[in-house]
């Protein structure tokens, strides 16, 4: 049940935080922090237990040693729904990311005054729901968390956002809800067509023999939801707006968590449930991804709003993730996994930095900004670090991931490899544009006078340490991702033979 | 006792029930409604006795006693209510007590 605690602790933390201020003022943030830290401890406990005992293979055949922890209990047996949570290294990494970013965002919004209790609750719930997505292997429960995840994000944009926040929040909701319908339809179809009654158990469904034609359509349903969340052009229109209007913590969670859930879904389920369909659709995924990575990078080159620029770089990077997954070879999938983690660090940090600038001068227009170098050296130095991460400088995790994806692409098709390399070149164009407009020169209108505070610097240093650590010593990360990658690659390869 | 007789008795019982029911529906005075209830309950009583006699089973009479007791209890409560209503609200017409509606 400790696995459940990883979801429930943040969830109830959020619930308590919502009402905590009624009893004792300004306790909401403490409640949120404590619940997330407890969730992290639970996760550490589960991971340690799984690693030390060699994992729990109970209930899943032929996958001994892959799962670090497994929990299975009935929820509504007559409906075929059960609580089936499983954690392997891949989920574990993303869970660490999710709880870590949760803690970080709570710290960042420590001094928030507007509806702080609700904000804390929304932060906790974002973490809780995405933890649910990362853990659930009962497809109905997965879909449930998937849909639920939008609610706190919606609140964050709609309440604490900037500019046209309501419209943006609704745009976000519409895109993802419509896309979610594909997932729901496919899940219901899968659940109701079993021979032995209704079941949504992904492991049972994975063992089923579904015709390739049906698989293709089901996968299309799944992929629609995932690709909109990822997002891949042409489904990305919600993201730049959402990022631009969202508050800083919202952007961080959006980039660090929500996009990752889409990548997680693509990584996990297509190869597991629909290997035949995957074989049919993967080439299109590659085309879409390679288009997206160039397109996102090109559009980013012309942005004037710093957050929008970073949002488009997210589009480009997540398209690389899509390519890596659709490549379906070990290198590319491993690379995709690492890009996911790396992007969570670097994009979060960039949003944090831009948010800090916005807090100081009230603009994110890069034409008006400038001069961080002179006035705020800490700003400039950290900015430089994540600038290099964005353009995939070796030594950062971003490079490692992209290099692995490119390696995999060389195994799949030279053309895709070349396109990824071109996107690496364009990344320099947009990265330098952002960097030198903000950091170099002198600002005409918006002079940043105050350097980063320690409360801002702390999280940034953590993110920077993560970027460099996983870039230079990625062995642990790779070991964690390896079983999931192997399982996916084996599933795909079994079809190709 | 023949079946014909039983049917006759049952028809009579049903008639008593129907008459009682009609009385409840037709009369507005509380007291008369209570009386009609008594008549209505006497129908099943008769039916039990007749059926008991037909099958030579004492259970029918047992049921009759039970019904009788109930009727008594019901009327006792009813009369108490009637007194209370008459005393506090000066009501004897059941149609006039209709504060609880819609």
């Amino acid at each position, binding site marked *: 049940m400790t696995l459940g605690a990883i979801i429930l602790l943040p969830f109830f933390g959020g619930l308590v935080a919502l009402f905590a201020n009624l009893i004792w003022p300004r306790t909401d943030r403490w409640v949120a922090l404590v619940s997330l830290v407890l969730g992290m401890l639970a996760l550490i406990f589960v991971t340690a237990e799984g690693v030390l005992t060699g994992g729990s293979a109970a209930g899943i055949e032929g996958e001994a040693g892959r799962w670090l922890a497994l929990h299975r209990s009935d*929820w509504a047996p007559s409906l075929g729904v059960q609580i089936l949570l499983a954690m392997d290294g891949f989920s574990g990494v993303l869970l660490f990311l999710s709880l870590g970013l949760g803690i970080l965002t709570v710290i960042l919004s420590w001094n928030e005054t507007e509806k702080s209790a609700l904000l804390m609750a929304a932060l906790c719930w974002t973490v809780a729901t995405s933890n649910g997505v990362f853990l659930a292997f009962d497809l109905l429960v997965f879909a449930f968390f998937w849909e639920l995840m939008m609610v706190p994000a919606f609140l964050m944009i709609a309440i604490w956002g900037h500019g046209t926040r309501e419209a943006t929040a609704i745009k976000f909701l519409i895109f993802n809800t419509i896309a979610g319908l594909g997932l729901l339809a496919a899940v219901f179809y899968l659940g109701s067509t079993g021979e032995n009654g209704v079941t949504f158990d992904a492991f049972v469904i994975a063992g089923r023999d579904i015709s390739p034609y049906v698989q293709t359509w089901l996968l299309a349903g799944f992929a629609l939801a995932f690709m909109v969340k990822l997002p891949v052009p042409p489904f990305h229109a919600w993201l730049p707006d959402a990022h631009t209007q969202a508050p800083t913590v919202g952007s961080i969670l959006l980039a660090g968590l929500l996009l990752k859930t889409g990548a997680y879904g693509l990584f996990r389920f297509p190869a597991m449930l629909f290997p035949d369909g995957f074989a049919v659709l993967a080439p299109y995924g590659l085309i879409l991804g390679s288009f997206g990575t160039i397109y996102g990078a090109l559009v980013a080159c012309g942005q004037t709003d710093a957050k929008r620029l970073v949002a488009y770089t997210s589009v480009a990077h997540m398209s690389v993730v899509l390519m890596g997954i659709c490549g379906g070879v070990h290198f590319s999938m491993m690379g995709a996994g690492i890009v996911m983690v790396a992007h969570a660090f670097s994009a979060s940090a960039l949003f944090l930095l831009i948010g800090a600038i916005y807090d100081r001068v009230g603009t994110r227009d890069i034409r008006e900004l400038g001069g961080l170098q002179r006035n705020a050296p800490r700003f400039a130095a950290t900015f430089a670090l994540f600038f290099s991460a964005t353009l995939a400088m070796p030594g950062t995790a971003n490079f490692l991931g992209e290099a692995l994806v490119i390696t995999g692409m060389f195994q799949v098709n030279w053309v895709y490899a070349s396109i990824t390399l071109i996107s690496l070149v364009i990344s320099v164009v947009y990265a330098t544009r952002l960097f030198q407009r903000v950091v170099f020169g002198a600002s005409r209108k918006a002079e940043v006078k105050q350097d980063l505070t320690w409360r801002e610097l702390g999280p940034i240093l953590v993110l920077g340490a993560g970027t460099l650590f996983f870039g230079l010593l990625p062995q642990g990360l790779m070991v964690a991702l390896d079983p999931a990658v192997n399982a996916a690659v084996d599933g795909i390869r079994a079809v190709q033979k | 006792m023949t079946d014909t007789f039983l049917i006759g008795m049952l028809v009579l019982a049903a008639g008593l029930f129907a008459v009682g029911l009609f009385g409840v529906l037709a009369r507005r005075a509380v007291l008369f409604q209570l009386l009609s209830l008594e008549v*209505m*309950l006497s129908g099943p009583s008769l039916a039990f006795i007749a059926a008991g006699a037909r*099958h030579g089973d004492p259970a*029918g009479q047992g*049921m009759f006693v039970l019904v009788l007791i109930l009727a008594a209890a019901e009327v006792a409560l009813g009369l108490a*209510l009637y007194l209370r209503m008459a005393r506090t609200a000066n009501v004897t017409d059941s149609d006039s*007590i209709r504060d609880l*509606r819609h």
Partner: protein
Amino acid sequence: MTPADLAALAPLIVLGLAIVVSMLLAPRADAVLVRFVAALGPFAAMGIAVMRLGAPSLPVPALLVDDGFARLGVALVAATGLACLIFLRPAQPAREGPPLMVLATLGGAVLAMAQHAATVFLGLEIITLSLLAMTVLPRSNASLEAAYKLLILGAIGAAALLLGFALAYAQTGDLSLGAWSGSGSGMLVRLGAALLLAGIAFKFSLVPFHMWTPDLFSGAPPAVAAFAGVASKVAVAVVLIRLAATPMPEPVWSTGLAAIGMASILLGNIQALRQPSLVRMLGYSAVAHSGYVAVILASGAPLGAEAALFYLASYAPGLIAAFCVAAGIGGTPMLDDLRGLIWRSPIAGAALALALLSLAGLPASVGFLGKFYLFTALIEAQAWALLAVAAVGSALGLYFYMVFMVTLFRRDDTPRPIPQFQTADTILLLAASGMIAALGVNPNPLVNLVRLALP
């Protein structure tokens, strides 16, 4: 009397003891003591019934039976009785209240165990008469009116029930509930079945025998209404399940039950639609809920018994919590009185909100699973017409529950009295809310409990 019989009858015995002792204490002793002594009865009965839930069933000679349904019924009735005892008002001037409530519980217990015309009748009448007595406790005009209506209509219902039994008895010569089987095609039995259905439908408040319900709910003390809405229905539902198990003359029974069930769902929900009074709304919605249970049983689904019992059990905490809040507010709370309740009195407001959520059958509350059972059973029986009506009814229900729900959260500036709750009330509210939420997330304990009762 064997020890087994003694064990089977133990709930009735402890209830009886509690009634006698508290009745004796009532004139002199402290009101709290009376209430406490009275409460021991249902508490013990509930404990005994729950503990014996898994035991093999056995018939107690002649009149009663001791099986899983009976035990679950007794447990639910006793639990409801206990809960209603807690917020039974007014307590101070009328010391007879607690013993009467236990008496009503005893009636429910007898009914749940009934196996014979005499016990069915006796159980029904004990409930009706003790409810009557409790209804007039406030001695207001409204309560007198409600009691009078219950009296007259109850007598009509009782007479119909008795006539039904008598007709069947005339044909078969057997008064036990098993008598209905075997000679199903006899005209007298079939006529009797119709009359029996009418009598039971009265107690189950199905249209068109339901009209006393909203009036009683608004006239009687809330605890009495809650008891009438939950405990007596559970007991009657057990009888209905027993009767359904004895094949009743078909298609009279199913068709009739389905017809009045559908009528209840539609009329109950429509009448509740814009009802401004909380308790009357609950009264009408109780009619609709009875209708849901009736259509479950009428559909003849294999899952029927389980679904019906689960539905009633799932609906109980919501109704009890809602009435407890109504009791705390006092009078007949109207929509306006509830405005912003959740800000004035967070616990009561949250409990009421949760209760409404559960009654509406929305997810994350136990009511959702009740509705889920309802629909599953109807789908299983392929009763599409019933399903359609149930769906329409649920949709209508969503509307009026949500109206009240939203009102709870509205802010307003008019000063309104803060509802008064005793500690026991608060505990009851918390327990009910906890049950709604916890069973809504994980219904397995309740499902298992209900399944234990199935043969």
